[in-house]
């Protein structure tokens, strides 16, 4: 007994630094344990749903693994879908740090994608080098998105218009603007069934990463996620933004430039969503059409919420949801289920994970 007591570290001699690290670890363990628990719960609930309709949950999980993460091919598919999700989720996460709920990423994505295509189309066949046209497209897309969501931020600060509703309305307006041009003056006459712009041509398309077979959007997403994490966690801008999000009155009393912070964060958000639109056009579709409004903007909102608006955590969450989407086709074919199965699973996961927010701070185990 006394031997054991001796081998234990003396409480009075414990180095404060170690105790601090340990308690910090326990707190961060909560941020990993609760989402994993919630994910498990969602899968159990979904398994019950599958059993109810007479399908095997085991086959489902197996196919989900094969289709999402099992092979190199499925990884390519997963990452390709994760790339716009990372970017649209970043578009939610950055304003969220200031306490803004922006849900207009879908519109910024669609409009920016369209603008990128509209910039490229006149140069197709002109022989102008991609080194000029492609940066132009990126710039135009990023700027369009930045201005679009920046407008919501401006209205929020100058006029007190609620940014959630304003960004939602701007989303619909953006989609209408794209449809107006795509169905009208910029329509490709060679596409009678689906209204599209002319193709942007192979020369201006974003290529694939060698050996990986995924377009560069995923790299752009990860780099931006890390950069924005550093911006929010390690710079004066991020510090001021977090104070504003935590307590607006305190921020105003401190003389922080709240208006500029709101505008800047909304513009960063818009630029992220705009880049998502650029990659959808320049790497996947090769032209702008209604397929751009595929719901990435809306899923991105949930990805950001599930990652608790942490830019780094967005990457794994987006990859998880990219994998679910990628496995959809396989599950549909092999199990004879509708393609909406994945939507149902996503719905279960979203609802359970968001509900699990309520568990934080409840467990003694994670208390520092």
């Amino acid at each position, binding site marked *: 007994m006394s031997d054991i007591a001796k081998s234990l570290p003396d409480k009075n001699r414990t180095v404060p630094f170690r105790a601090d690290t340990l308690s910090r670890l326990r707190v961060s363990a909560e941020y990993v344990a609760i989402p994993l628990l919630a994910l498990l719960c969602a899968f159990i609930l979904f398994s019950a749903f599958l059993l109810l309709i007479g399908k095997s949950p085991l086959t489902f999980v197996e196919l989900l693994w094969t289709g999402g993460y099992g092979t190199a091919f499925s990884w390519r598919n997963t990452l390709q879908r994760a790339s716009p999700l990372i970017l649209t989720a970043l578009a939610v996460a950055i304003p969220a740090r200031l306490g803004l709920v922006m849900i207009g990423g879908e519109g910024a994505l669609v409009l920016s994608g369209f603008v990128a295509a509209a910039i490229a189309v006149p140069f197709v066949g002109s022989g102008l080098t991609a080194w000029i046209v492609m940066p132009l497209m990126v710039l135009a897309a990023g700027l369009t998105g930045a201005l679009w969501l920046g407008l919501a931020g401006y209205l929020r600060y100058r006029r007190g218009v609620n940014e959630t*509703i304003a960004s939602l*309305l701007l989303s*619909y307006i953006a989609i209408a603007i794209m449809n107006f041009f795509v169905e009208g003056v910029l329509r490709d006459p060679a596409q009678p069934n689906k209204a599209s712009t002319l193709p942007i041509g192979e020369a201006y398309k974003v290529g694939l990463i060698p050996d990986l077979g995924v377009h560069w959007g995923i790299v752009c997403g990860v780099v931006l996620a890390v950069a924005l994490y550093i911006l929010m966690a390690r710079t004066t801008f991020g510090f001021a933004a977090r104070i504003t999000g935590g307590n607006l009155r305190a921020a105003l009393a401190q003389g922080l430039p709240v208006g500029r912070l709101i505008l800047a964060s909304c513009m960063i958000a818009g630029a992220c969503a705009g880049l998502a639109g650029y990659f959808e056009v320049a790497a996947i579709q090769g032209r702008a059409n209604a397929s751009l409004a595929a719901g990435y903007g809306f899923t991105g909102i949930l990805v950001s919420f599930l990652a608790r608006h942490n830019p780094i955590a967005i990457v794994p969450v987006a990859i998880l949801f990219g994998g679910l989407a990628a496995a959809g086709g396989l599950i549909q074919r092999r199990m004879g289920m*509708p393609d909406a199965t994945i*939507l149902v699973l*996503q*719905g279960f996961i979203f*609802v359970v994970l*968001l509900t699990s927010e309520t568990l934080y701070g409840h467990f003694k185990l994670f208390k520092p």
Partner: protein
Amino acid sequence: MNDPLLTVLIAMLGGAIRVSTPFMFVALGECLTEKSGRINLGLEGTLVLGAMVGYAVCYQSGSPWLGVLAAGCAGTLLGGLHGYLCKLPKVNDIAIGIAMMSLGTGLAFFFGKAYIQPEAAHLPSVPLGAWLENKQLAVALDVNPLFFVGIAVALAMAWALRNTRWGLIVRMTGDSAAAARAMGISVDLVRFLATAAGGFLAGVGGSFLSLYYPGSWNEGLSSGQGLMAVALVIFARWDPVRCFLAALLFGAAGALGPALQSVGVTQGYYLFNAAPYILTLLIMIASSNSSRSLAAPGELSITK
């Protein structure tokens, strides 16, 4: 008769009556929920699930009215779930709303696959304009019965919110949770019931889409009408009667594009479709600066 302006006006009137019903129900549901101090962005999912359940039940039973009721019940379930989850501490109602939208749409698409092909019975229409000489106007005045139900609900809700004890409780919960608690009212219960009832109305609105106009079940049935209802309620400044009028206006604005196209004006069709959104945004900008003038419930997170 051949006056293009008249044709456009009649088409817009018909469009307003035809298209406004789902807007009206979702907006009334959202209005009730928001009056209690909570927002439900998930009504888009409720609308789609209501459309699917209404169609399926009508197809199986042969009775469209049973379909309407079933759609309402499905909406109540989704609304109730939203209401229950949002009362938990630290759960964000806007995010849960979007999650419920994705769950509702997912369930509707999943179970609705079997009902894309079959033909189900429709709700009957009331030919108000049968006595008219003008055939166009007569067609425009073929009014669906749910339209009248919607007006009745709007009037009843406006009256009840103003004059009954229940109405007072809902309004007080929405304006100040602290005051309601001081009166011994369970804020969570009131919001739960208001959200569930709002879900019922949205479900009924959904059944209109599949059982009257466009009148069949398919996955592209609701193009964001449920989400738009949130804007519509702000546009109507949380007043049920103005919700009805705003729904008419949104319906007419939505019919403007097709109406102009039918008389040969094809330019700007898609921009006219955006008219309701632009209108709402402009009104929000014009009436903002002091949320008091908006007459918004004080506890509502989106107006803070």
